[in-house]
């Protein structure tokens, strides 16, 4: 099986430049910068059908196409790798950055070339100290080898690379808030339009791509769009790093063809549930996705099919809910995170999420009231795209909405019995 993202990653180790070059690293950089035009690189990525691996699933090639091109385009232009991986349950980008930072760097340089960017940043989650170290070392190596900086390999293309460590807010993973944070300001998102491609970092044309997305670019350029499409089991192109957390036998990550059946990942890769536990449902793509019940796992785990199943592929790292875990407590834990991470800009998120958290806390502690369920449902209805300023609150509502939908009885038991039925000895 082809694993273009993780084939060279060994646990506890990191590939340095020499090691990376030995396994074919920086070939795509040479090919792109020497033999292809920026537009040709864009076309290849578009035809490969590479979709954003940060959760949104938007076509990367199309995203790039909105950046103004040519000699009249405003300068400087920026490319940013979104390494602010803070979606609960997600750790795939850390694997890539720690294990093979050069693939990300090569991906960034080729992608920057595709949009004619002058500077590229890795915007890194505050807690990813190891990644920060490894990326900085790798960037230094890349400069030394002439893969970054002025007049790369004599091609006339110049790119400066930087690592920027975030101050540590989940909202900074949202691309427009990321750009604002990168500018040194408070991480508030921006409304679109204007899109970052028109007015992004410092008001200049910018594009933000997820780390995993960018790591796919070198193999696409080296092996071609058609090859990339064959890697997937559906028509969506490429592989995906899938992950599992929760009470499964083997929590971890696996790079598999995009569209691998979800059940296969759960039962064969993750080994099913640990001894004595039964899978009840899972959040397929991180905390801000809707539950999928155990009986509904039989579909190709890609963007389109997961949406049809009533959820989202998101980051592709699932969190398992077992029968021994209270779903209300499970959701409460997540809402506590989301409430704390609200940036405080817009009213529904800033005031609504803490209210939701307090209600769930009350349910868990036996102080729930019948009207609480209605209040939760009202929040689910109103904390929606377009009503809030950004997707944070709508994402926060996904586990709550589906939790109420699938586990309504459990919520009501909390109210009726004035306790959490899962708590022992109360």
């Amino acid at each position, binding site marked *: 099986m082809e694993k273009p993202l993780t084939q060279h990653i060994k646990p506890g180790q990191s590939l340095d430049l020499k090691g990376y070059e030995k396994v074919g690293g920086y070939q795509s950089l040479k090919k792109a910068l020497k033999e292809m035009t920026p537009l040709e690189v864009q076309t290849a990525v578009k035809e490969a059908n590479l979709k954003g691996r940060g959760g949104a699933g938007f076509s990367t090639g199309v995203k790039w196409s909105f950046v103004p091109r040519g000699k009249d385009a405003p300068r400087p232009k920026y490319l940013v790798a979104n390494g602010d991986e803070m979606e609960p349950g997600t750790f795939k980008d850390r694997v890539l950055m720690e294990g093979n930072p050069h693939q990300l760097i090569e991906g960034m340089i080729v992608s920057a070339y595709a949009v004619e960017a002058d500077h590229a940043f890795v915007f890194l989650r505050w807690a990813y100290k190891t990644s920060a170290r490894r990326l900085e070392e790798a960037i230094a190596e890349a400069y030394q080898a002439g893969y970054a900086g002025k007049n790369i390999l004599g091609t006339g293309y110049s790119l400066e690379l930087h690592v920027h460590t975030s101050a540590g807010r989940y909202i900074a993973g949202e691309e427009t808030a990321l750009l604002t944070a990168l500018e040194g300001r408070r991480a508030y998102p921006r*409304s679109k339009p*204007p899109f970052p491609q*028109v*007015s992004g970092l410092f008001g200049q044309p910018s594009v933000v791509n997820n780390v995993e997305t960018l790591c796919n670019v070198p193999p696409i350029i080296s092996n071609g769009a058609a090859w990339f499409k064959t890697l997937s089991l559906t028509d969506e192109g490429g592989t995906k790093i899938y992950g599992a957390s929760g009470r499964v036998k083997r929590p971890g990550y696996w790079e598999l063809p995009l569209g691998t059946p979800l059940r296969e990942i759960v039962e064969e890769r993750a080994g099913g549930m640990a001894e004595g536990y039964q899978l009840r449902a899972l959040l397929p793509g991180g905390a801000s996705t809707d539950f999928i019940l155990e009986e509904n796992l039989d579909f190709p785990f890609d963007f389109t099919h997961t949406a049809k199943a009533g959820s989202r592929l998101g980051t592709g790292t699932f969190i398992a809910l077992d029968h021994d875990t209270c779903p209300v407590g499970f959701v409460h834990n997540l809402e506590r995170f989301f409430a704390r991470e*609200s940036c405080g800009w817009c009213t*529904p998120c800033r005031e609504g999420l803490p209210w939701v958290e307090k209600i769930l806390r009350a349910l868990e502690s036996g102080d729930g009231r019948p009207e609480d369920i209605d209040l939760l449902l009202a929040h689910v209805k109103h904390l929606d795209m377009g009503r809030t300023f950004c997707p944070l609150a709508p994402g926060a509502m996904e586990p709550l909405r589906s939790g109420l939908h699938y586990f309504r009885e459990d919520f009501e038991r909390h109210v009726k019995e004035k306790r959490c039925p899962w708590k022992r000895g109360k």
Partner: protein
Amino acid sequence: MTTIYVDGKAVEVDPGSSLLNALLSAGFDVPYFCWHPALGSVGACRQCAVKKFKDENDTLGRIVMSCLEPVQAGMRISIDDPEAREFRANIIEWLMTNHPHDCPVCDEGGECHLQDMTVMTGHVYRRYRFQKRVHRNQYLGPFVEHEMNRCIQCYRCVRYYSDTAGGKDLNVFAAHNRVYFGRQEDGVLESEFSGNLVEICPTGVFTDKTCKSHFVRKWDLTTSPSVCVHCGIGCNIIPGERNGQLRRIRNRFNGAVNGYFLCDRGRFGYEFVNSSRRLRRAVLAGPEGGRPIEAGEAVKLVADLLSQREGVIGIGSPRASIEANFVLRQVVGSDHFYDGLDAAESRCLETALEIFRTGKARSPSLQEAARAEAVLILGEDPSNTAPLLSLALRQAVRQLPLQAVEKKQIPVWQDSAAREAIQDAKGPLFIATVEATRLDEISQDRFRGAPDDIARLGYAVAQAIDPGAPEAKDMSEQDLALAKTIAAALRTANRPLVVTGMSSGSVEVLKAAANVAWALCGENKGAGLLVCVPECNSLGLAMSGARPLDEAFEDARQGKVRAAIILENDLSRRASKKALDEFLGLCETVVVLDHLETETTEKADIVIPVSTFAEADGTLINNEGRAQRFYKVMMPGEGVRESWRWLRDIGRETGSAEVGTWQRLDDCLGALIEAQPQFKGVERTAPRAGFRLTGQKIARQPRRLSGRTSGPAGSGGPEITPPADPDSPLAFSMEGYQGQPPSSLIPFYWRPGWNSVQALNKYQSEVGGSLRDGDPGIRLIEPPEDARARYFTDIPPGFTPKNTEWLVVPLYRVFGSEELSRQAPAIKELIPGICLSLSPFDAGQLGVSDADEVELTLDERVFVLFVRISEGMPRGVAGIPLVAPGIPGPVLPAWGRIRKRSR
């Protein structure tokens, strides 16, 4: 205009605005918080939600924020859609989860935007049962009170404070539902525009601390349209009174002048009206001190003086209305009427008028200044002298960058996006002053020099624009290069602006500024020349053609003056102590009409108590040449009268037929225009006293005003009749026309459901634009058709520092220099200490460091002062802030000896 469909009805709206602005302008009631006409849209609060439909067949629609939605021809939206209604009510409910519900004890109650929006959305029942988040409040200075629990996190305060006012010390801290708006630590807010927070804040987080000291419910206030008297810009204000006490000043919108904002000096400087140092009785000085006399006796005494027509002079005032100055002039005769200004100021004002009357340059309004594309500030520091001008200039430097932004299809009203796209880009603004200013940070380049050198730079700029203009010789390479840069920026701009003034006392600077403006006019540029004037009616006084005060002193020395009638003027601020003492000594009788005890009233033989702006009507001419009417908000107290009425009575007593017939202000004004045609147009500033709407006078009080009869009930006696107001169409009553009167007569903003300042929306044709009836004020000065002025050629030589003497220049301070506002306790707290500003070089020469003491010998007196080392201060020049009476304001600029004070 374009058509959109609102709940099925076709509505005509402005295609360039946001949907919210369009809906509000069309009269729809859409609730909002974070949007503000002066701040634009950011989409934070989500209160302005409406439903938008794809087409006629789309029945579901989706919720959008009207503030961020651009108007599109044919768009279909619904305000009444049930889902949108529910969402808007939910927004209030969410805000109420933490709001303390302390309306009964909150200052804002009754004019609170949150109250209004809560009622508008129909939210009544709060389902939240958990604890509210609470905050600690901060001490923010004597002007603004802080109560953070009430905050609804609309972000208006920090956006206004940083983006509009350029303030640095108010920020947002923390995150999620604990966001906090305040300073990093307790302390006085640094911006001189902090007071606008009390109107910008839609709740009671930021409230007027000075009003708190004599608290009143806002619906109980009697209000009037008035004009600020604390500088020459003439911002429009709404004073509020109750029970004979002036309680607070609020902004009165004038789209051509101050717009939505006031400076702190104007907003908080009103306490002098309530001061215990108010003159309340006419007083006759005698050997055993002054004794109060009846009004009639005072009038007779002064009339008797005048009847011996020889040698009685009148000294006018730049802070008295044109009417008051006029009556004095009539009573003493135009030959005997003097301007009451210090010599330098008199010369400067005369020159400024000449410049406007003979030259091509136009005197722009503040709003026009805000749209200038390139600015040269020559020899004036507006951030201290005319603060609202500095606010306008902060907008001016956005003009060119905003044009670039519009090319990216980002509408200017989409504020976050526009600011993001602009980043730090600024249009060209150059500032040439003696010391550093708060506007330096928005300037492209700065010049520091003595006034003569500043003038020379101006002459060089003019010549760089038009080689035909006179050349300033012997300028350094560096200065010439700067002049060329400035010239280039001004020439390429579509609307260049030259700002100057007279606070440095230099007429040279004025002339140089005129040359620059005229050079630009020669290039067919719509060049503006904005001349800052010191006081609220400086220009009005200058236009009346009074003789300079200097000549009065000279006439007195020649024995031609026997008595002086001084109108609303403390002459100790106008002349050296020596000259003044001599003059007053030469007068047999000195009559002073004023409202407060001053050094001059102390020396008067007859003191006559007059109304302040709050108790009088009149007309003031601002720096632009705009005549504006102010109306009394209360009747003068017992024994006090308007200046013009006192003087009319005196004139009548002398048997003057003309003056004696005047009953109302209109009569006086009519005669004024007749006698002085240069004031023609003033009659159009406001309707005559007989003006009525639907047969009614215009109410100064809202219908909700309480206690009109119960208030004085305890003192027994019959119900007190509201006083009549013969001078204006306004009534001291809530009985009267409550709708929108002509702009110059608007006493308050109110509409059903809109009890806060936001009600102003209903008074404008387009929200954010001019009032429906046009903005108040009549411009009196336009460039003449056949402008004949030739360039000024008397270029001063370069300033040469002297060895043992320094040129001491006056430094105007936003708090403390203006005579009336400095008496307010809140303002007093912020008056800086007196010190002598010296350049680092000069300090070194004198062997002094910061905070050392020096002796300054000037005007035959010795002053002991602390040193303040001022970077950028030119060599050979020293500066004294004009913050204490007696420190030699009137004699500056002057040469003085400085030496380190020996211990």
